[in-house]
Each structure stands twice: as structure tokens, then as C-alpha cells.
């Protein structure tokens, strides 16, 4: 990664401190004051989102922000670095985070136990995400990954049902396994390079012992793929995301999965200088398989939350289709994948929140019996449908822009197989979205005993869905943030065989 020579302003580092320490402080306060958890948490969420906005503006104005933690320079100390990529994901996290927080105040209003534990755990999850996005240190990233995994697993279990616990345990085991695989890679890199700073490692990798670097890269990326739930490592995701409370599912699908994808991307582009050609091809094949397999399974689900969860499996696949395209010279594919990641974050959160509304209203999420609920909750249905537009990749949504850019790269390289997968994924997405939306237009067969849904829950879902659509109109505004270093075909490291530790 070429270092930005322009002197960073003072604003950036200050706001980086804020985005990591504000949610942390909020989490501790929520834990200490369980009765005030909701108001304290909401304030912390609002402040965190505001500082993220400030950091975003600072980075857009002054370029990459850097901080030396403890005042120690790189090989000895830990660095924070917020560049365009970090800021884009931080901003998406903040947008989803603050909306989910609003939603959660209403969602957990009547459940004291869940409320008192949701807030500290969720704010720690947010802390972990922000810390991960600004960290420029391989080992520190490991700690943030673990923090993230524990917070996510605890939140998954929050509902307390056997299904939730099983999902949480499986998730925790997978998460720890992935982190250990990553840590093994870090150990090898440290002993090959004598540093864990991203920029210094990037400079050292070309001259370091190749087998060690290859195995390290393979172990790190394999561990992260496990956490990103790339096919065939997706088995843990649907049960976990499907059984968690709605705001938690939203956060897990929208943000947590993206964090490990971000790290794969960061390593691939900034540290390893672009991986080997055929490793990228392998990732592309897995991505394509994920798109098709995830979509087909989503279509076959009978429960709404599982449908949405499998949709995540499919959408994660899209992100990896970018790898073969980008390695072959289409840097536009990175922008496309990032755009898809951001749009998916917003849209998928909106979908899970909508599902939460329907579940709250009708007491179940069996798709075949959703008719009475969708009739009574038009705003929720609108949110789901708008989010669906982005997931399908129809214009002018964020999902459309991402798919367009991927398609552009695929056509330029005449990769018609990938073109077909990208398009087919969209068609299948339309099929599973309309499987749900279609219920809005059937006459409601039976009246059920129903619970009112607070307007805040409906509006926050709609807000996120609208954001996913509006994202489609903002590419000129944010594309400077998404310019990743051109992944040159001449790679510094060719990853080792398989990498499937």
C-alpha cells in the first residue's frame, strides 16, 4: 500500500479514537447500569454514528488518517489507519448500527432480560467492528476478530431457545477455529518478517521465505473465509442468523460477515499485493457456487428468516466473484464488490428488521402463512420489497451499481460464465423476494391473534431499505473512497495450494 504522503489532519485521529472508545464506553455503562441500558445505549449509538460521520468527512477531506497507539511507531507499536475502504465500511456500520439501535429500543421494550444484555453486547460488537476497520496490525486484528466473534455468538444466543443456543455454539466454534487459523498465519508472518504491521509486512513479503508466506496467507484467508461463510463454509450461518433476535440477525448478516470479508480484501490487496491467479479463480468458483447454491436454498426455505439467511450466503458469493476479475486487471471489480457489500449491508439489515416485524406481528415466520401480517404492515412490506430491489440488483439501487460494475469487468474479460452466474443470481433473488412479497396481494385468509408493531420498528426497516436504494445514486460521491490499489496481475505472493486448512 503506497503511503499517503500528504500530512494527515488532526481531526482524523481524534475521530478514530471516538469511533472505537465511544461504543466501548457505552457498553461498559450499559453493563454497569442495566436499568438504563436502553437510553444509555441509544445515546452511545448516536454519538458513535456522529463520530463516524465526522471521521468519514475528515478522511474525505484530508485523506488517510493515522494514529500511533501509545505513541510508538510501527514495528514496535500498533497503528490505526482509516483509509477510504475503512471509512466506507465504518460508515455503513454506523448507518446500520444507529438504525438497528433505534429498532432495538422498541423491539426489546418488553423483555427486560434481553434488553439488559443486548445493549452492552451490541455496543461491544460495534466496538469490535470499528476497531477492526481502523486497525493496521495483523495481531491486533486477531484480537478484534475474536472480540467480534464472541460478541456475535453471545448475541445469537440471546433469544435463549435451544435452536438459538445450538446456532450460537456452532457459530462460536467456527469463529474460534477461523481465528486460530488466522493466528497461525500471523505467527508465521511474524517469524518470517519480524513485524505484524500491515504496511511493513507488505514490504517484507516479497523477500520473505516463500513457503512460509504462502502457508501463512493460506491459513489466514481460509480462516477468514470460514468466518465470511463462503460456500462451502456457509453451513453455520443460516442456523445462527435464522434463530437470533431480529436486530441481532440484521447486524450479523449486514456487518459481521462483512468484517471478515473486509479483512480478506485488505490482506489480498494491501498486504499480499494481490494473490495468485488461480487462487483467485478458486475463490471465484466458490463465489459462483455460493451464489447459485445459496439462492436455490433460499428459494426452498419455508421460514422467512432462513430464506433471508440463505440469501446472505448467496450475496457473499458475489463478493468473491470479484477476485478473478480483479486479479486479471479489472480494478473496477473491487469497486463493484465493495458496492455490493455496502448495499447488501443496508438491504439485508432492512430485510431482517422487516422479518422481525412480521414475526412480532404474526407470532411466526412461516412464509406460506404470512398473508395476514403483510396486509397489516404495508410499511414493513415496502421495506422488504425495496431491500429486495437492491438484493435483486435492479436499478437504481446500490445492488444494481455493484452488479453493473462486476458485469462490466466480466464482459471486458469475456468471462461469460461469470456473467451468467451474476445474472442468474439476480433472477433467483427476484424469485425468492417475490415469494414473500407476493403474499401482499393475496386475500388474507384467516385473522390471527396479533400483536401491534411499534411504528419505530417499521420506519427503521424502511429507512435502511431506502438507504440501500439511495446508495445507488451516490457512486460519484463515494467512489473516491472505494478506489483500491490496483491489484496488479504480477503478484508478490502466489498463494499455496488449496489454502483450505
Amino acid at each position: 500500500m503506497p503511503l499517503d504522503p500528504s500530512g494527515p489532519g488532526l481531526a482524523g485521529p481524534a475521530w478514530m479514537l471516538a469511533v472505537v472508545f465511544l461504543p466501548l464506553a457505552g457498553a461498559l455503562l450499559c453493563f454497569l447500569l442495566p436499568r438504563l441500558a436502553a437510553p444509555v445505549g441509544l445515546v452511545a449509538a448516536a454519538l458513535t454514528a456522529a463520530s463516524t460521520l465526522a471521521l468519514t468527512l475528515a478522511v474525505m477531506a484530508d485523506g488517510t488518517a493515522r494514529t500511533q497507539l501509545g505513541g510508538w511507531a510501527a514495528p514496535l507499536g500498533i497503528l490505526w489507519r482509516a483509509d477510504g475502504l475503512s471509512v466506507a465500511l465504518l460508515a455503513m456500520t454506523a448507518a446500520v448500527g444507529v438504525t438497528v439501535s433505534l429498532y432495538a429500543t422498541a423491539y426489546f421494550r418488553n423483555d427486560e432480560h434481553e434488553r439488559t444484555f443486548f445493549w452492552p453486547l451490541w455496543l461491544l460488537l460495534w466496538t469490535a467492528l470499528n476497531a477492526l476497520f481502523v486497525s493496521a496490525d495483523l495481531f491486533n486484528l486477531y484480537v478484534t476478530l475474536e472480540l467480534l466473534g464472541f460478541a456475535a455468538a453471545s448475541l445469537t444466543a440471546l433469544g435463549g431457545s435451544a435452536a438459538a443456543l445450538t446456532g450460537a455454539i456452532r457459530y462460536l466454534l467456527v469463529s474460534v477455529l477461523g481465528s486460530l487459523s488466522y493466528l497461525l498465519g500471523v505467527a508465521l508472518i511474524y517469524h518470517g518478517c519480524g513485524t505484524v504491521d500491515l504496511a511493513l509486512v507488505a514490504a517484507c513479503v516479497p523477500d520473505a521465505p516463500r513457503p512460509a508466506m504462502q502457508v501463512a496467507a493460506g491459513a489466514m484467508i481460509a480462516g477468514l473465509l470460514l468466518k465470511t461463510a463462503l460456500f462451502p463454509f456457509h453451513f453455520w450461518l443460516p442456523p445462527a442468523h435464522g434463530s437470533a433476535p431480529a436486530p441481532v440477525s440484521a447486524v450479523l448478516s449486514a456487518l459481521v460477515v462483512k468484517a471478515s470479508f473486509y479483512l480478506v480484501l485488505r490482506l489480498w490487496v494491501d498486504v499480499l499485493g494481490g494473490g495468485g491467479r488461480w487462487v483467485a479463480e478458486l475463490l471465484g468458483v466458490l463465489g459462483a457456487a455460493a451464489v447459485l447454491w445459496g439462492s436455490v436454498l433460499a428459494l426452498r426455505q419455508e421460514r422467512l428468516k432462513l430464506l433471508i439467511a440463505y440469501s446472505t450466503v448467496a450475496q457473499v458469493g458475489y463478493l468473491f466473484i470479484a477476485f478473478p476479475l480483479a486479479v486479471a486487471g479489472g480494478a473496477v471489480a473491487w469497486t463493484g464488490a465493495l458496492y455490493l457489500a455496502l448495499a447488501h449491508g443496508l438491504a439485508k439489515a432492512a430485510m431482517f428488521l422487516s422479518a422481525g416485524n412480521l414475526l412480532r406481528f404474526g407470532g411466526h415466520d412461516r412464509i406460506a402463512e404470512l398473508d395476514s401480517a403483510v396486509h397489516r404492515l404495508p410499511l414493513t412490506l415496502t421495506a422488504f420489497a425495496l431491500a429486495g430491489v437492491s438484493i435483486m440488483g435492479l436499478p437504481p439501487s446500490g445492488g444494481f451499481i455493484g452488479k453493473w460494475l462486476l458485469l462490466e469487468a466480466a464482459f471486458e474479460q469475456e468471462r461469460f460464465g461469470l456473467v451468467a452466474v451474476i445474472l442468474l443470481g439476480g433472477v433467483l433473488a427476484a424469485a425468492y423476494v417475490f415469494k414473500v412479497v407476493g403474499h401482499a396481494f393475496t386475500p388474507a385468509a384467516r385473522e390471527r391473534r396479533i400483536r401491534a408493531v411499534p411504528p419505530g420498528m417499521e420506519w427503521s426497516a424502511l429507512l435502511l431499505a431506502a438507504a440501500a436504494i439511495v446508495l445507488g445514486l451516490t457512486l460519484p460521491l463515494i467512489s473516491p473512497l472505494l478506489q483500491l490499489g490496483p491489484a496488479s496481475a504480477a503478484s508478490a505472493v502466489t498463494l499455496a495450494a488449496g489454502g483450505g486448512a
Partner: protein
Amino acid sequence: MTPLFDPQLPADALLPLLVLASSLLPGLVVFFLGEARVGTRTALNLGGAFLKLGLVGWMILGVYHGQRYELRMPLLDDLDLVLRVGALSLLFLVLSAGLWLVTTVYAVGYLEQSPHRSRFFGFFSLCVTATVGVAMAGNLLTFLLFFEMLTLTTYPLVVHRGTEAARRAGVVYLTHTVLAGALLLAGTVWLYTLTGTLAFAPRGFVSEVASEHPAALTAIFALLIGGVGVKAALVPLHGWLPQAMVAPAPVSALLHAVAVVKAGAFGVVLIVYDVFGIEQAAALGVTGPLALVAAVTIVYGSLRALFQDDLKRRLAFSTVSQVSYIVLGVAIVGPLASVGGIVHLVHQGVMKITLFFCAGNLAETLGIHKVSEMNGVGRRMPWTMGAFTLAALGMIGVPPIAGFISKWYLSLGALEAGVHWPLYVLIASSLLNAAYFLPILHAAWMREPSGPWAEAAARASAQAGDGGGRPRPETRWLLLLPPLVTAALSVLIGLFASMPVSPLEWSLLIVEREFHYP
């Protein structure tokens, strides 16, 4: 004239946006209105429709004086969303804005008392918004955007009734249109990677790369036509259209005459003229197959129409056939044929909407859905059937009704281009048209009613406030007026085809401006 119209006004760039907003905003507001707020809803709908028509009229004036309206918004790095109003856009704009107004009036009458009206009118307005967006698209990306929006906003209208048949029709409709959308997207992106631009231009924008990538361009042409061909109901992509007949009559009118099918046909026109350029398309050898598809569609649609007893299904297959006149006109390479095709955009719309209004009136007033139930209905509903007769005769091509003009120019165009077979197709199609319309007219006017107009008549009299044997309109005024207006229109635009702003003259203007005379 000039003081009225100052081309320097910055507001002119906003006019396309206002045209969109005039249906978008009422549509969004209507969603939030309670079912019972009939007055507010109707005022919003009609206000928006009149406003749109006024704005379009204003732009006719401007375009006639050479003004071009353009609005740009960056969407991708070097690709903008462009709304632009030229002569061709205006033709489609006038059609959709005008017919939207009529259809809104009709729908207000048709849907009295029925449930989910706010939802219906909301999507109705969004649907028209998408259509005018398609009309004003300045590049293929913008076209794609509004074309997909049209898909999404018409789906709720197709399944509006919520019955099992409606649900199935919705599935068929979506399957067709979503797959078509994927093709269109693929073709668009592929084209962009070759040319680096998507801006519509007279005589197209592919000529520079045509020699390098003939095969790719042919494939792109197929993808794009496949994408729009579903909405244009080209055989074999037409399967959704007869199914969609389960929707309420105003929706059918909208699908067939104003929005969906028209957008598809308009898309074909754009792709041939403004993307590829007619000469480039001919040089690639893609117009021949397109003409063939159109011819097959024309004959096939007519043949199928012949055997439908369900009135709306017969009309639907008639649409399949008639819309391909437009495609045929475009695909026969030559200016006169193009005039015939383009003017048929308007002519077919006006005539077909009349037919659907009438069919809706029969169903709504007398419960008639089948051709075999129409014996003697002309005496019971003379005005409705009068309008129906005019439109049907126009479809067959009887002068001086609008349909005759289209067929005349198509035939002339074929002769001008030196090909004869389209002539035979037209003749065959006209005979078939006669074969499936004339029996209806005969039954309606000449036959005795099979029985009393039982149950539906009672309902009509109850709604008329118990007229007690006194003469009363054959059905509600809101249902009767729209077909009368459109029927009169289809005669007038045929009679006065050579007047300054008639559709024909306007098409000639378009062809002069956009068609390259050698």
C-alpha cells in the same frame, strides 16, 4: 409564440423532472391515504394527470421550435442518468400522458367500492411515472432503469385481484419480465464495454466498433431485443400477456395501450434507431430476422385471437399481433415503413384502449366476459358498442380510422424498400382481424339477446338510484365517457392525419430528423 416560451429559462431543464414528479408524488401520497378518502385521492390523480398533460403540451411547443430538454445526473463514473425530450420521446409522452388521464377517469369509475384502491392508484401512478421515464430516457442506462421500474410497478397491478388466477398470472408475468430484464442488463453492459457510451443518438452509436466486433454486436442486438421483446410480446416471448388478462380492465388498458407493451415496442424502436442505427443494423443483418419475428408474431397473434371465446383474451392476442406492426415497420428498412411503425405506436394505443374500456364496461355492467355472451348487446349498450365498433373497424384497417393510416404507410414502406412479403403479411393479418372482430360486431348488433340481462341489470338500476323505468345511461358516466373519447380520437387522428401536430405529421417529423436519407 416566442414570448410565451423562453428557451433560456433554467426551469426548462427541470421540465422532464416535473413530468416525472407529476405522477410520482401523487402516487406516493396516495399510498398513505385511507381507503375512504375518495375525493382527495381522485383529486390527486386527476390533478397529476392534467398537470402532466399540460407539461407535455408545453414541451410539444418547445420541441416544435427546436428546443431540447435535457437533465443529467451522474450515476456511474462516466455514465449519467439522462432525461431528454426529443421528437420521438414526445410522441410516446403524449400518448402515455393523454391515455393516462383517460384511464384514470375510467379507473375511478371502475373501481368504485372495490378494496385496496389506495394501493391500486399508488402503483398506477408509479407505473405511469416509469412509462414517461422510459419515454424520456436519453441513454440505454436510463431506459433500463425505468424499464425495470415498470416491471416492478405493474406486478402489483397484475395481481391486484388477489385470486389464485391473478397470483399465477403474476408469477408468469414476473418470470418473463425478470428474465427479460437480465437479458437487457447483459446486453447493455456488454455494449457499454465495447463502445464506452450508451447515449442514444440519431443513427446509433455503434458504428465505430461495428467492424471490429460484428459477432458481439449481433449477440448484443439479440440480447437487447430479447429484453424488450418480452414486454413487446414478440412471439415466442408473449406468453405473459394473455395470462395478465385476469387484471381489472383499467390495468389491461394500461398494459396494452399505455405502458408495458408500448414501452417494449418503443424499446425496439430505440434500439434499432438510436442504439444501432437502422443502416448499421441492416448492415449487421439483424433487421431481416427481426422483421421475420414480427411477421410471425402478427400472423400467430391473429390466428390465436380467432379461437378465443374470452373477449379479453381475444383482445390480448390481438394486441400481440398489432404491436408487432410497429416492430415490422421498424425492421423494414425504409423511411415510409418507419413512419407507419412509429405512428402505429399511437394509433394502436388509442384503438386498443377503447376496446378494453368497452370490454370492461360489458363485464362490469352486464357481467359479460365471453364473445358467445354478446348476442344483441348492441341494443342494451349502444354507446359502448358503438365505440367498440369504431375501434374494431380501425384495427381491421377500414379508412378513415387511424389503423388504416398505419397499414397504408407500412405497405408503402415495404414497396419503397423493394420487398413484397410484408404486404402479404399485412393483408393476411387484416383478413384475420376482420375474421375475429366482425363476428363480434355481428353478434352484438344483429343477433337477438339469448336471455334477459338479469342480475347485472338489477345491480345497475340499484346504483342509478332506482330510475323506475325512466331512461337512464347504459352504465356509469365515468365508465362510458373514456371509451367514447378514445373512439372519437381514433377517428379524428385518422381523419385529420395531415394536420400539423397529428401523430402522422409528428412521425414524419421524427423520421425526417432521425432517419438518414441517403
